[in-house]
């Protein structure tokens, strides 16, 4: 009898072994993840992209078993800096800075680093060697979309371009657009427009309508932000030129998928990184840093090209299905380690 009890106990202990082993294998401080607190300090939070990013951060933090504190400054640069100080005062172990202005975040990030806190920054350059940059590569986003535009339309076409200067990701996408214009002399940009007046799609639609009537020959519109692309598509349909125009954009959401899949949709392709994956990578990069490993100065999350045909062929209707059908979209092989559990799908 006794031997049987011992056997059972052994079996029980054995059953627990994998998780125990995992926790023991994890380097400090993740051998005791419940004691680790990380803070997410946000500058931008409104909209699908940022909502999805937060979901990714939450999922990866939960998979690691660490505590997450979210600070949301709602586009108030000064408040965001205060929030970093607040997080320092709370004694968090790591901070993720999500967007913001270099001017206001540079000093705040330095204060956190000085306090011995590990910091990573997503889409804001805090000009600090100790702070790895998480990036969705905007240049790659633009390049993928534009290469598709060249494949679909040839090397010479009349183009419209939607751009608002002064927004860091749009500025980086703009660099790639200018490179392409220099490389392919046949690209004739007849109009540049754009606005961030919200609702953005509505305001851009108003502008695009005017552009289409002024330039009836436009074949390609490069609208490297999904709200821009929506606006251009609405205008193209209203102006009755949807059949003659192809729109190439960046970013994607469930609503965008529906628009791209409308019959005769002019929205040909978009290049996107999954914001949830970017959120997960942000947490993993911070975890590596906390464990004393080096995630690298720049952690780039590679984008995926998504075309109208891919969506139609796979009968994809929302972001979840996009992840299932196009695995590259669901996971990025960056900032990985054996001891980091990935969020369950």
């Amino acid at each position, binding site marked *: 009898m006794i031997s049987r009890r011992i056997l059972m106990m052994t079996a029980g202990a054995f059953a627990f072994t994998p998780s125990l082993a995992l926790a023991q294998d994890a380097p400090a401080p993740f051998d005791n993840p419940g004691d680790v607190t990380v803070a997410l300090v946000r500058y931008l*939070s*409104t*909209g*699908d992209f940022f*909502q999805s990013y937060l979901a990714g951060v939450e999922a990866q933090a939960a998979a690691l078993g660490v505590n997450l504190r979210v600070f949301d400054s709602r586009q108030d640069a000064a408040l965001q800096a205060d929030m970093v100080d607040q997080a320092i005062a709370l004694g968090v172990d790591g901070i993720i800075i999500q967007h913001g202005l270099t001017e206001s975040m540079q000093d705040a990030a330095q204060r956190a680093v000085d306090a011995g806190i590990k910091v990573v920054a997503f889409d804001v350059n805090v000009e600090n060697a100790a702070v790895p940059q998480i990036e969705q590569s905007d240049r790659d986003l633009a390049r993928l979309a534009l290469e598709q535009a060249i494949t679909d339309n040839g090397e010479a076409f009349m183009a419209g371009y939607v751009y*608002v200067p002064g927004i860091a990701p749009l500025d980086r996408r703009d660099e790639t657009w200018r490179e392409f214009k220099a490389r392919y002399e046949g690209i004739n940009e007849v*109009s*540049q*427009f*754009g*606005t*961030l*007046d*919200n*609702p*953005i*799609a*509505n*305001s851009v*639609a*108003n*502008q695009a*309508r*005017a*552009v289409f*009537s*002024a330039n*009836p020959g436009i074949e390609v519109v490069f609208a490297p932000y999904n709200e821009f692309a*929506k606006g251009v598509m*609405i205008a193209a*349909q*209203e*102006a*009755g030129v949807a059949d003659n125009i192809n729109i190439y954009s960046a970013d994607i*959401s*469930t*609503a965008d*998928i*529906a*628009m791209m899949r409308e019959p005769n949709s002019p929205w040909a392709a978009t290049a996107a990184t999954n914001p949830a994956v970017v959120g997960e990578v942000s947490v993993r990069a911070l975890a590596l840093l906390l464990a004393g490993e080096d995630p690298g100065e720049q952690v780039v999350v590679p984008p995926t090209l998504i075309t109208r045909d891919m969506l139609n062929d796979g009968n994809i*209707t*929302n*972001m*979840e299905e996009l992840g299932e059908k196009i695995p590259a979209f669901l996971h990025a092989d960056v900032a990985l380690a054996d001891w980091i559990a990935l969020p369950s799908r």
Partner: protein
Amino acid sequence: MSVQTRLIDLAIRFGFLLLMAGLLVFFSISAPGFLSPHSAVFVFQSVAITGILALGVTATLVVGGFDLSIGAVATSALMLSAYVMVVWELSAGVAIALCLLMGAGVGLVNGLLIVKARVPDLLATLGMMFLLIGLQRIPTEGRSISTGMTLPDGTVARGTFSELFLMLGRHRIDFFIERLIPLSVIFLLVVALLVWVFLEFTRHGRLMYAIGSNAQAAQLAGVKVERYKIAAYMISGTLASFGGVLLAARLGRGDVASGTNLLLDAVAAALIGFAVLGAGKPNAFGTAIGALFVGVLLQGMTMMNAPYYTQDFIKGAVLVVALVFTFAFTARGSRGA
């Protein structure tokens, strides 16, 4: 009346319309494609939504009030209509009815806050604006609404915008040219006409002007000031929610948006309207012209590839000139008379 004062009088009355005619000529010459029926219709379409909002705010301006919540009401109606159709899978009729009720309800609360709770109008409607911007995001946890979206409880929304609803923003009526005039433009014209007739030619409208110029005197003359003020906010709220419905029909989805730009554009149109025909007071005709004026400017400038910040600059300049027309010249004219 001397020749000089008569000239000033003419300038005040027709200056703005002349300026607009001048703009039209200028753009026709310098922007190819500007002078076409499609382009003209488009100017109307681009201002249809802000124009309807502006007519609502005009009603509150007439009673000496102000409604800062119209932009938020419009975007709340945008989200509500999408929610009703996409998540609850109800019909277009229900969606429109609920939106209009919501708008009227918000107007009623605004009116009660101002009249009964004696909160100053700017503050009451400012509070309402923030409240609505937050409220409209609570059901979806801040996400935009579209078919196929995953709801907070993990289920997938399968409803769609009905064709009937989308028609409100997209259908175009044959008018000499096939499929020329969008329904939203017809709505703008009808609403403008109704508000104009109501304010200028009905007893109620004149009483509202009387309240606006001197509420106490109107009260002493036996006007039910409180009721008219509440009514003005309800008109404003209802028209704003109607604008939101048209916006939803155009976008075909429930976009998260604060509506601040809608508010600012609508207020600008209403204020420019003060200067039209030298009215010197809020009026429906002026508001409609004001909205069109801004629409013509933006359309023409976009066709000439002017960047967005110059457009904001010009919009602001027009507003300042209009306000000077209204307050400096009109006031001087009345003093002189």
